[in-house]
């Protein structure tokens, strides 16, 4: 694909300022260009996915400076998958935003949205560790704007906490990068992989410190216990569709862990060994348990959705932490599922919030307008997130359990126990919101504008989850090839052309 690798970063980067500068006052133009931009991104990402499937990893050199001195973007199956997933989710969520009119409740929604996508795409594509930091900041600064879209005291307060937390994470990220640079003298990921593999004995301790600092940063992004504190309040207080888009933001943490700890610090590195897997697995299991407990004890639908996101990150990191090709394939399948399902539950929560200001699960309140349809969508989301058949959550958990056969005692107990808690939690929430509500006669007829687009978006997500379950065979075969590529980094390193063999 050559030069097209940078297109997913350039397209939103050009379109977003254009929207701010030229169509600030015209919501129709903003919507048209915003949707066209996201649809263009989706088309681009499908083409990149196609190219990554048939070709070995490819590199785009920024400014044609050779690696490791210049910054490179690398397209391989993993980055292409993440880019395509982001673009697909973004388009669906943006349709919801247009359908519900969320973009008219504040200013510059579509421009911020495109900047957010630019940061996400760059983070998935970059092959340079410092550039990863820069794209993290790009996606974060856009997310700060999106998070407080629409304003309000509670949202602003949660926004300040969210920013403060992430600024600390950014500082840690810089400390980690500087430590790693101090040891190896490079920040290109492929070059790092080569240098860390042959690190002299005396530098091993510093490399371990750098690696652990880095995993802390990614754990903050991925909301891994005990660094998950930012997530429940942020996702609960953020506008519903923004929280749905944020479903991919936690996956940035998971992506970065997969990338860095299979490429730079694989478990056969003499300097670090299995240190990171040993740190990650217990944290992931505790995250899963805590998320499930949170779902069971959530006092409002927003909190329930946020803790369901935490639980799904726990499941995902459990699979990631095993660091075998089979487990990585399972993790990627669950990653796709978890992104779609988490986004779905936030959209459903927003549909309810749009019709009833109070999302409390402690009180039974009168039924909401169009409650039947919303209840059906919630039911689908609950099945998906709890991991029950027939949707893809069940298959994802099955793949993870299969991959964790060696540690069956611990992993199976936690995953299955958490599933029971999740089922209970969702059943309790569903019956309070949609079923018991009918015991209360509504004071006046509940009406709401039909807004068909706002139902099309969650229905599309639910359909995608169903398709992911039906097409599980071909999808897992593709993901197994992806996992094989991830655990065999030689072609990735070769693509960076570190010796400058092809000028």
């Amino acid at each position, binding site marked *: 694909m050559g030069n097209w690798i940078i297109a997913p970063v350039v397209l939103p980067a050009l379109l977003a300022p254009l929207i701010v500068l030229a169509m600030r006052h015209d919501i129709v133009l903003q919507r048209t260009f915003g949707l066209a931009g996201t649809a263009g991104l989706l088309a681009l990402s499908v083409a990149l996915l196609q190219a990554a499937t048939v070709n070995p990893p490819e590199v785009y050199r920024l400014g044609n400076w050779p690696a490791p001195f210049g910054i490179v973007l690398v397209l391989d199956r993993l980055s292409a998958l993440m880019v395509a997933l982001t673009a697909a989710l973004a388009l669906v969520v943006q349709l919801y935003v247009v359908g519900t009119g969320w973009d008219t409740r504040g200013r510059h929604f579509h421009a911020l949205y495109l900047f957010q996508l630019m940061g996400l795409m760059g983070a998935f594509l970059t092959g340079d560790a*410092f550039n990863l930091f*820069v794209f993290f*900041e790009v996606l974060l*600064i856009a997310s*700060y704007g999106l998070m*407080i879209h629409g*304003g*309000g*005291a*509670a949202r*602003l*307060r*949660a*926004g*300040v*906490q969210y*920013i*403060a937390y992430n*600024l*600390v994470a*950014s*500082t840690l990220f*810089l*400390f980690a*990068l*500087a*430590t790693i*640079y*101090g*040891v*190896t*003298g*490079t920040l290109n990921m492929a070059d790092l992989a080569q*240098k860390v593999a042959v690190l002299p004995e005396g*530098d091993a301790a510093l490399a371990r410190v750098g690696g652990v600092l880095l995993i802390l940063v990614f754990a903050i992004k991925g909301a891994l216990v005990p660094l998950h504190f930012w997530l429940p*309040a942020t996702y*609960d*207080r953020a506008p519903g569709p923004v929280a749905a888009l944020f479903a991919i933001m936690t996956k940035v943490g998971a992506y970065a862990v997969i990338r860095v700890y299979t490429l730079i610090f694989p478990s056969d590195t003499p300097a670090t060994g299995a240190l990171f897997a040993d740190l990650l697995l217990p944290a992931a299991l505790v995250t899963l348990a805590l998320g499930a407990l949170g779902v069971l004890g*959530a*006092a*409002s639908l*927003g*909190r329930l959705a946020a803790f369901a996101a935490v639980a799904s990150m726990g499941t995902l990191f459990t699979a990631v932490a095993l660091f075998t090709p089979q487990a990585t394939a399972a993790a990627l399948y669950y990653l796709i599922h978890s992104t779609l399902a988490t986004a779905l539950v936030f959209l459903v929560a927003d549909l309810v919030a749009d019709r009833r200001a*109070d*999302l*409390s699960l*402690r009180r039974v309140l009168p039924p909401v307008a169009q409650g039947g349809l919303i209840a059906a969508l919630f039911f689908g989301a609950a099945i998906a997130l709890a991991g029950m058949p027939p949707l893809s959550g069940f298959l994802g958990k099955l793949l993870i359990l299969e991959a964790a056969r060696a540690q069956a005692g611990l992993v199976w107990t936690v995953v299955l126990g958490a599933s029971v808690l999740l089922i209970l939690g969702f059943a309790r929430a569903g019956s309070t919101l949609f079923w018991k509500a009918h015991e209360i006669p509504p004071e006046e007829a509940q009406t709401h504008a039909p807004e068909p687009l706002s139902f099309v978006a969650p229905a599309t997500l639910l359909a995608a989850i169903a398709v992911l379950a039906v097409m599980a065979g071909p999808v897992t075969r593709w993901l197994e090839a992806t996992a094989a590529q991830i655990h065999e980094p030689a072609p990735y390193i070769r693509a960076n052309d570190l010796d400058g063999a092809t000028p």
Partner: protein
Amino acid sequence: MIPDPTPYLPGLEAVVASAVGLLTAAGVYLILRQRTFPVILGLTMLSYAVNLFIFASGRLSTAAPPILREGVTTYADPLTQALVLTAIVISFGMTAVIVMMALGAWFETGDDRIDGDGGPDGDGGRTGGGGRP
């Protein structure tokens, strides 16, 4: 891995290391405070600390230019200086954002506490807050 360009500089190392340490300690203490202003100051301290740390990761040297020049044999690492510039710009921008957000939250809620959460009923923490004026 990086060849040391200059002789060992124990005095300079002690100064830089203790500066990073002190700034980090002050930053960590301040970000654990309850009000937005000390927390933002703490974040700024942390970013100063990390900027110094990045700079030091290219090795300390004196009288060594980072750019190629006639008749010079020892050079400072130019990459860390570029990294520091990027980090300074980003942390400066982020500090501006959090100052604006903190002001916005203060005007909306009437207090500047950063900890605590409004609880599930969304009162923005106004009932649980209180504290000093």
